[in-house]
């Protein structure tokens, strides 16, 4: 079941231990019980981003849901508790959505986590910080990692975040586009702070995943699909549920 440890250890060594400002969200939908969305958040600016994204992705119009109380202070100020993760539940139209929220900056560790998790992912969002060259460099590592571990038909998208900070830009939009083209993935520049393209990005990825899901479901028989509630009823082998996994790096 678990990822082979030796392999994970090896990966850790190849990778730069000092990965800055990358964000990981993991959406997961278990095959039984409530839909679950897992996310890892190690950059507080992306909380809003995720929140808006999830609203779009799940077609929610209300603001009355709580995803996380994690604030930048808690992350930077090393809250006494040293919180590893939280489990949160939001309820929409009588559907419970459970979220597992990782809010630490333990880079080494989260790589192990994501390696294990995104094997079942249906969508992966790679996010770098345009004011941070290194975060862009790391995207290649992530892509390699994804190609190795994630399923072949996973939807990928790359975001250059913090595009409001033009004066601190280190990575040109061109370079972002080039890298995206190289790997055949969609690309956008976003600003969580200025709410630029954030919803679009999530919506695009969500729509792509959903389209893929719908195609699969259409080809495997009838379903009463409503919104994202596309759970495969056939139990554990279900790879059909829309939000089974979406990983954001």
């Amino acid at each position, binding site marked *: 079941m678990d990822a082979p440890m030796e392999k994970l250890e090896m990966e850790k060594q190849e990778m730069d231990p000092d990965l800055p400002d990358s964000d990981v969200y993991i959406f997961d939908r*278990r095959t039984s*019980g*409530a839909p*679950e969305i897992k996310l890892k958040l190690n950059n507080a600016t992306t909380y809003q981003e995720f929140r808006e994204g999830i609203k779009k992705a799940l077609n929610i119009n209300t603001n009355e849901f*709580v995803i996380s*109380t994690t604030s930048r202070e*808690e992350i930077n100020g090393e*809250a*006494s*508790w*040293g*919180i*590893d*993760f*939280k*489990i*949160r*539940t939001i309820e929409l139209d009588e559907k419970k959505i*459970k979220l*597992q929220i990782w809010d*630490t900056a333990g880079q080494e560790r989260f790589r192990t986590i994501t390696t294990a998790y995104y094997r079942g992912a249906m969508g992966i969002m790679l996010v770098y910080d345009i004011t941070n060259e290194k975060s862009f460099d790391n995207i290649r590592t992530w892509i390699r990692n994804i190609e190795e571990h994630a399923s072949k038909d996973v939807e990928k998208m790359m975001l250059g975040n913090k595009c409001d900070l033009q004066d601190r830009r280190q990575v040109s939009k061109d370079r972002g586009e080039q890298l995206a083209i190289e790997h055949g993935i969609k690309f956008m520049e976003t600003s969580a702070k200025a709410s630029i393209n954030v919803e679009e990005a999530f919506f695009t990825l969500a729509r792509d995943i959903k389209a893929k899901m719908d195609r699969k479901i259409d080809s495997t028989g009838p379903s009463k699909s409503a919104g994202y509630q596309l759970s495969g009823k056939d139990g554990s082998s279900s790879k059909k549920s829309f939000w089974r996994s979406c990983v954001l790096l």
Partner: protein
Amino acid sequence: MAQADVSTISTTCSSVKLAEICDDEGTNITRICCQRCPSLVLSPKQAKLVKKEFFLPNMFQKNDHTPLEGVTLNDFWLVTNMMTFDNVGFSKAVDKIMYLICADCEMGPIGWHSVDNKKAYYIAVDRVKHG
């Protein structure tokens, strides 16, 4: 529901009458919430009442520092899958124990989990609100 059991069980659990919060099978009948804020930790019928001696550090909130003092508690709600929780926070493991806290106000520890047993998550009856 044997009312007689309650007084003996409740030695460390002065505020809660166990018979009022669980059914005959020991399953919680009420919502289980944080004592300090309205955060829902567990929905009804999700946890089993168990006897288990465990030392939990005293409750504190986020910016206080870890107290060394604590108390041994006996009554816990047991959940076998962490995704059963509605809202809960997990601390980083300390000597293989992850402490559970309120996901909203971060008050805790309200329970614990041993990393060696992936099928057991305990919420202290005495540290949550029922109903």
